[in-house]
C-alpha cells in the first residue's frame, strides 16, 4: 500500500489541501479547496474521495467530540500519512517531468 498509489485529479487536490490545512476537518478542506481552485466543491464528492484515500492508506481520519454549533455532529479531522506525502511527491515529480521544456507553450494559450 502507498508507494505506487496513483492519484486522480480531485484526489490530488484533496490530498494537497489536506497537507496545507494541517489537521483540518471537512468544512475547512472545502473552504480551502474552493478558495484555491475557484470551483464549487460537493461535500459528497469530498467524502467519497476521503474514504478512498483512507482506504489507500494515504490519509488517516478521526472523529472529535460533537459540538453544538454543528448541530451536535462531530468533526472528521484529516491527517496526511507518510505514504500520502510520498504519493504527492511522486505525482509532483511526474508532473514536473512531463512539463519540462514545454511550459513556454502555455504562454500562447
Amino acid at each position, binding site marked *: 500500500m502507498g508507494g505506487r498509489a496513483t492519484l486522480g485529479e480531485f484526489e490530488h487536490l484533496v490530498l494537497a489541501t489536506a497537507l496545507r490545512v494541517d489537521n483540518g476537518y*471537512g468544512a475547512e478542506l472545502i473552504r480551502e479547496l474552493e478558495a484555491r481552485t475557484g470551483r464549487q466543491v460537493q461535500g459528497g464528492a469530498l467524502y467519497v474521495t476521503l474514504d478512498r484515500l483512507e482506504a489507500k492508506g494515504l490519509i488517516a481520519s478521526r472523529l472529535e467530540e460533537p459540538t453544538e454549533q454543528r448541530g451536535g455532529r462531530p468533526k472528521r479531522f484529516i491527517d496526511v500519512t507518510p505514504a500520502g506525502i510520498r504519493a504527492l511527491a511522486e505525482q509532483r515529480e511526474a508532473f514536473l517531468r512531463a512539463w519540462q521544456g514545454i511550459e513556454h507553450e502555455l504562454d500562447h494559450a
Partner: protein
Amino acid sequence: MTPRPPRFLRRLLAAVLPEGTARDGLVGDLDELYADRVPRGRVKAVVWYTRQVISAAVRYRARRTRGSSGQRARLAGLGTDLRVGGRMMLKYPGLSLVSGLAMAFAIFVGVVVFEVGSLYVSPTLPLPDGDRVVQINSLDAESLRPERRLLFDFEEWRTSVSTVQELGAWRDVRRTLVFEGADGPPVEVAEITAAGLRVSGASPMLGRTLLEDDERAGAAPVALIGFNLWRTRFGRDPDVVGRVARLGGQDVTVVGVMPEGFEFPVSHDVWVPLRTEGAGLEPLSGPPVRVVGLLSPDASLAAANTELLALGQRMAARYPASHEHLMPRATPFIKGFSGGLAGEFLAFGAIGVLVVMLVLLVCGNVALLLFARAAARESELLVRSAVGASRRRIVVQMFLEALVLGVAAAGLGLVASAGALSRWVGPFLEFNEGRLPFWMDPHLSPRAVLFALGLTVLGSAVAGILPGLKVTRGMASRLRQSAAGSGGLQFGGVWTAVIVAQVAVTVAVPSIVYFHVWQVRHTAQFEAGFAAEEYLTVQLTRGSTAIGPGGAGADIAASFAAAVDEVRRRLVDEADVLGATVVSRIPRTGHPDYRIEVDEGPSARASAVGAERPEAEVAHIGPSYFEVLRAPIRAGRAFDAGDLSSGERVAIVDESFVELVLGGRGAVGRRVRFLNRAPFPVEGDSEQWYDIVGIVPDLGMGRPSKRGPFAGLYLPMDLADQDRVHLMIRTRGDPTTLAPVVRGIVADVDPTVTVDGLVAADDVLAGELSTNRLMLYATILLTVIALLLSLSGIYSVLAFTVARRTREIGLRAALGGGRRRIFVDIFRGPLSRVAVGVGAGSLLIFLGLVLLPDSSFSMAEDLAGGVTLQAVGLLLGYGAFMFSVCLLACVVPTRRALSVEPTEALRTE
C-alpha cells in the same frame, strides 16, 4: 443563533449517507458551510444545500450499485423509456400539466395526512435512548383507573427495581415567572427528580442540571430554564446562571439552560427539584405524580413487568388496605400518556372524509386523463405492436411514462407539504389541542418521503398500467380491424363507473366548502349582547397545592377566593376601570351545556313546552355581573350577595331561554333542575330545584361556531369552588392598555395565581376565527384545485368518447340522418352517465346531512344548520353548471363531426 439548513433536507441527507464517519462528519460540515452562506442570501444557501444533498445521495448510492453489463444494458433501455416519458410529457403539455398537478395534489394531501396521522398513531420519542424510556403506572384493577398518588410506591420501586434504572418522578405545575420585574404568560414547570431528568440523556447548554442535593429539605431553591424561555424572557443572557428569578412567588436561582428543543418530559419550560419533604410516607398519600425510568440495557419491557408484578404482589401482601388492587406496570413512555392518541386522530374524522374524497377524485381523474391520452395514441401503439413490441413492453413503457410524470409531481407535492407541515399544521394542532408534547413536531420526515415515493409508484402504476392494459387488450384483432377500416377503442363498464363516481364526488365536495363558509360567517356574526370593545378579560388560575404533609387544599381554595376578590376590589379602585366582575366563562367562548327540566306543575307535566329535553348553557357569575356588563334586568332581579349565604338555589335565565324552553311564557317564579348531571360543584344535586329569579338579555352564551340560539342560564358563583375564574373588566379607552396593571395587581396580591388570556372581550373570537378562516382557505384552495382537475378530466374524457364516433356521425349524416336525431343518440350515453353522477353526488350530500347528525361529531349539527333555500339553490346551480360543462364536452366534437364532409369523416382513423 446559528442558522440551520431546512430540517427536511438535513434529515434526508442523514438518511442517504451510510452510518459512521461520512454521516457524522459530512452533515456537520454542511451545517457549518450552510451557516457561512446564509448571510449572502438564505434562498441561495438552501439551493446550494439542496445540490449538496442530491450530490451526496447520488455519489453514495452510485458506490453501492455498480452492476453487471446486463444490468447496464437494461439501465440503458430504462433510460430510453424515461426519455420517451419526458418527451410525452412535453408533447401533451396541457394534459401533462393537469394530470401532473392532480398527482402532486394527491401526494401533498396524502403526505400531510400521513405525517399528522403518524404523530398520533405511532409517535416516536426523539431522545438518545427513546425506545428504552418507560413510565411506570399503577392500575387499580378494581376501578380500572390509574392511581397517581405514587410517591410511597415510588420510594419502594426506586430501591427494589433492578430492570429499570434512573427511576424518577415528576409533576406538572404552572407558575408565573417574573425576571427583573417583567412577567409574561405563565410557564409550564416540571417539578422533577434529578434522576427523572437524567432519563432524557440531555445535558444543559449553560450551567448544570438538577442534582439530588437540590431535592433535600432546606436546599436553596433552584431552577433550570428552557432555551425558549432563556431567549424570550432572559434576553439570551449568557451570564444567566446564578441570577435570581421569581417563580410562583418564590425566589429561585437559575442553575442552567437546557438546549433548544428540549421540553422533556412533555412540554415544559422550567425544571425545579421535586421536593417530597416527607409527603408519601403513607401509602396513597401526597400529590399525583408520574414515574419515569430507563430500561436497563439487558432488560426487556416484559422482564421489567414481571419484576414489577412480583413487587406489586409483595406490596399488596404488606399493605392490603391500600394496595390490594394495585398493579404496577411499565409502558413505553409515550404510550403511558394516553391510549387515546389514536382516538384523537379519529376525531379528525370529518377532515379524513374530505381527504379520502379528494384523493379518490384525483386518482380517478388522472386515470381517466391518461386513459384518454393512451387512447389518443392508439394508432401509434398499434404500429409499435405491428413491428414487434410485446404487450408487456408497451405496458411497461406506459408505466414509465406515468412514472416520469409522477416523479415530477411528487417533487412538487413534497415541497408543498414540507411548507404546509412546518408553517400551518403545527399552529393548527396547537390551537385545537393546546401546547403539543415535544415529540409531536410536524415536519416532513424521511419516512413520509418514502411514503410519497410509494404513492408515486402506486399512482403511476394505476395511471400507467391500467390504461396500458386496456389499450393493448385485443391488440392483434384491432390491428386486423384497423386494416379493414373499422372498430376502435371503447370505454368499458369500469371506466363508465369511474366517470360516474368522478362526477358524483365533484358535485358533493363543494358542499363541504359551503358549510365551512357558513360556519365562519356564523362565528363572526355571533352577537356578544354588550359593548365588548370596552372590556378586558383575564383568566386567573389557582396555584397548585404545595407538597407536604397535610396538603392544606381547603386553605388554598379559600386563599384563592380571597385573592380573586382582592384583585377585583383593587381593579375597581383603578382610575381607568369602570367596573370588574367574575364569571366562569367569557361570553362567546362556548359554555358547558346541561339537560334541564322545567317544573310545569303537576297538571302540565306531560305537555312540556319547547324542546322535549331542553338544554341550557350554564355560566356561574359574580353578583355584579349584569351591572358591570350594563345588561338591563328584563324581569325579576339580579343576584345579590345573600343568594349564596342563604343556601337558597336561584337562577337567572336569558331571553332565548324564555323563548326556547318556556315558549315565551313568564320565567320568574318557575323552577328548573338539571337532569343526569349537574354543573360543578353540586354533585348529586340533580334532584334540587332552582328558582328562576330574573330574566336578562342574551349575553353571548353558547358556542359561536354552532347553530343557535342557545338557552342561557346563570348561577351565582361561589369563588371557593373555583380553580379558575375569568374577570371582565370595563375600562375607559383601549382595554388592552390595562393588561400590565392587572398583572401587577395579581402578582402583588398572590404570586401563585397565574394570569392567562389577557385580551379584549371583542377579540375573544379572533383565535377561533383565524383558525376557521385558515381551514376555510385551505379547503377552498384544495377544492378548487380538485374541481378544476376533475372538470378538465371529465371534459376531456367525454369529448374523447364523442370524438371517437366522428366516423359514425359522418356516416349517418351521409346517409341522410337528421341532425337532431344524431345529437340525441350521441348525447344519450355521456349525458346519462353525468346525470347518474349528479344524482349520486346529491345523494351523497343528502346522506351526509341525514347520517352525520347521529354521529357524535359536532360539525354534523352545524351542517344541518347551514341548509337553507340559498344552499339548495346553490346546489341546483352548481349541478346545472356541471351539466353544461359536460354538455359542452359533447357538443363541441359533435358539431365538428357534423360540419366536416361525410367523405372526410369516413376517412378519419
